């Protein structure tokens, strides 16, 4: 039931926590940009997920997720899209600044 959530904690939220702990001063300047990226990713990703699930391109075993579905997409998948678009944009900002 909690497998996907635990996976998100390990592979998504832990790196986000570490990045913000180390680079909070830089990253906090881009809060609005991160919100834009996340909202755009959701608008795009959820439609994609919805179609993929409906057509059977991939599936989520019921016993590994909480069972909360929003627009026919599991809650964890929404969190996946939010988390990974956030990590990628965080990393991009850090690298851009470091390689300047």
């Amino acid at each position, binding site marked *: 039931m909690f*497998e*996907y959530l635990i*996976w998100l904690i*390990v*592979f998504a939220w832990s790196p986000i926590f570490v990045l913000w702990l180390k680079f909070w001063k830089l990253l906090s*300047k*881009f809060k609005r*940009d991160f919100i*834009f*990226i996340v909202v*755009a*990713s959701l608008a*795009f990703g959820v*439609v*994609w997920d919805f*179609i*993929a699930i409906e*057509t*059977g*391109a*991939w*599936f*989520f*075993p019921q016993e*590994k*997720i909480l069972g909360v579905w929003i627009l026919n997409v599991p809650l*964890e998948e929404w969190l996946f899209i939010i988390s*990974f*678009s956030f990590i*990628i*944009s965080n*990393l*991009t*900002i850090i*690298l*851009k600044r470091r*390689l300047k």
Partner: protein
Amino acid sequence: MIENLINMIFMLIFTCPVLVYLIVKKQKLFWSNIKVISIVIFLGIVYGMIADSAAIHIGIWSFYENKILGYKIGLMPIEDLIFAILITCIVSFVTLILYERKGL
């Protein structure tokens, strides 16, 4: 055979037009930041392979074998690898567009 391409077709339909549009529209910005984008993509591939393999091993998500090409790197289907590359590229590039607009 066409059924095996379903996953790949979805991915390409959802990502390629956006990516091509952004690159054509912001060519200069894209090429001047190719180093940053490449590093982020590289990290996305390496991290994606580890995280995706773990997810498939645990059984968080699964693919119907008849809906994928069948080529895998470890447990990760080739479709997921291409997904990691394309999505990372788009998100990273959009972030850079917003970064440049800030003029920092």
